[in-house]
């Protein structure tokens, strides 16, 4: 049930999708894995929108070279606390009504179930495919929605994965990009992170269309957006079983 204060706070979005949808946001538990360039805007906009519980996961502390894009942090935060702890402090200033759970640790096969078992949706804000594949496997196994984005330079891609209905990350990108220090600017992570938050809000409220089975790419340098329909790989070693199960 929404309080009088909450109804006033979220008035402008309740005008669009109604009280019931706002209550769904309040009840939702969403994990943001990675609190860097993508994780910063995702967490800020989900906090502002009134997501009930955020699970923030990252093992790193902010460094000077992060500050061109990781807008949750400032100069006073460098090399002090882990990102989830700092993020919680900032997000609580924005909205004291939401619950924030912090996990200042890296996700491994051994701890992923403990960290993510109770969430309703997982947002991939990682900077490496090794952990992305792990997240994908877990989400497919547990049938949890996974909102993927990845960026480099002025370019980014986003898709929403619903296990059993859409291609998984392994169907789409079975070969990871080369590991390297990648160029990036804050406007790219800002835009793609906001789009990920938008996907979470639409997914939970049921309002609007999601990027399920669609790979959306943005080239901010040349103002080009592309959207292609993508299909599951029938022999995907990660998710093909979920489709067989649906057909039975």
């Amino acid at each position, binding site marked *: 049930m929404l309080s009088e204060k909450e109804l006033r706070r979220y008035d402008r979005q309740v005008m669009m999708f109604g009280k019931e949808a706002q209550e769904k946001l309040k009840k939702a538990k969403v994990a943001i894995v990675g609190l860097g360039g993508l994780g910063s805007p995702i967490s800020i906009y989900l906090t502002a929108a009134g997501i009930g519980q955020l699970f923030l996961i990252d093992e790193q502390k902010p460094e000077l070279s992060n500050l061109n894009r990781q807008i949750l942090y400032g100069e006073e935060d460098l090399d002090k606390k882990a990102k989830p702890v700092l993020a919680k402090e900032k997000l609580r200033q924005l909205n004291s009504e939401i619950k924030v759970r912090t996990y200042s640790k890296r996700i491994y096969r051994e701890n992923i179930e403990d960290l993510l078992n109770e969430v309703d949706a997982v947002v991939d*804000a990682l900077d490496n495919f090794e952990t992305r594949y792990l997240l994908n496997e877990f989400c497919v196994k547990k049938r949890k929605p996974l909102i993927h984005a990845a960026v480099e330079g002025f370019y980014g*891609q986003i898709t929403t994965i619903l296990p059993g209905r859409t291609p998984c990350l392994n169907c789409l*990108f*079975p070969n990871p*990009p*080369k590991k390297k220090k*990648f160029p990036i600017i804050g406007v790219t992570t800002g835009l793609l992170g906001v789009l990920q938050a938008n996907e979470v809000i639409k997914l939970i409220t049921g309002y609007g269309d999601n990027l399920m089975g669609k790979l959306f*790419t943005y080239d901010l340098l040349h103002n*080009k957006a592309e959207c*292609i329909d993508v299909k599951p790989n029938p022999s995907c070693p990660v998710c093909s079983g979920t489709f067989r199960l649906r057909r039975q």
Partner: protein
Amino acid sequence: MKIKIKFVSFLRELSGVDKAELCLPQDATIKDAMEKVVYDFPKLKKWLPQHIWMFINGNYVKSQTQLKDNDEIALFPPVGGG
């Protein structure tokens, strides 16, 4: 047969075009198409085919995939940052 190529992001910059059309023999594969792309757009040599993501009609494809007339191969840069 005729094959269309669609370049995304910096692949578009390197090739200088959004799209291209190739004429290939009937039994051509993705590998053959990529060799022709590199011949026509030498600046892409460093990237093709191993350092890009390729899709035909929404399906991820590998070098040995057989092509059909009028297929459109979309070439995406592999990105992993966050």
